[in-house]
């Protein structure tokens, strides 16, 4: 088999969607620089990573970005939006 299965963890879902990644997880409201969560929050980081890995085995649609909310992250941030040309 040629190719390696990948799972992307993205905090910029609109930007990532343009590249149509095979599989992707958006942890809702995580800010840029916090792909897995905040520093030292190992349980949260583990939840995000295990959820991402489990998406490898789920029947997701190629190019689709799956959003999961993690309340333990705390304050949420607005992700960057893609400017559409006028």
């Amino acid at each position, binding site marked *: 088999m040629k190719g390696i299965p*990948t799972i992307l963890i993205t905090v910029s879902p609109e930007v990532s969607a343009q590249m149509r990644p095979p599989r992707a997880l958006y942890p809702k409201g995580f800010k*840029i620089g916090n792909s897995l969560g905040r*520093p030292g929050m*190992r349980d949260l*980081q583990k939840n995000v990573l295990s959820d991402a890995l489990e998406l490898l*085995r789920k029947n997701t649609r190629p190019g689709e970005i799956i959003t999961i909310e993690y309340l333990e992250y705390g304050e949420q941030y607005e992700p960057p939006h893609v400017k559409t040309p006028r």
Partner: protein
Amino acid sequence: MTISRKCVPFTPFERELSKSTIAIVSAGGVHLKDQEPFNIADELGDLGFREIPQDVESSQLMVTHHHYDHSDADRDINVVFPIDVLRDLQAEGFIGGIAKKHIGYMGYTMQLKAMYEGTAREIANDIDKTSRADAVVLTGG
């Protein structure tokens, strides 16, 4: 920029996670402290990448990237490069193993074609041929 019209390069994954080896490829500008930092002075971006060994200590890693706030990663590299988290998941039997090699690169470039056709392919080949990874976790900043 418009949505890519290229076919989505989807590779099926049919293994058990508990028997699978996982690699990390991060666009977050992660590298070993004793490796050459990414060239943030080049406004076009740095097209290089750094190999990170299987047995790396997270304290040996750092970030060179000037297009996101990496102060949290400076305190805990796992927020963009979850090597210790992978080890926890391996210890729990959730995954089978850690790949022999991981990759860090600087996910900012004004040279998209060179990144897509050059760097990305080199990274994929490197991981495919030498890391023994069954799957790859991709992270950004």
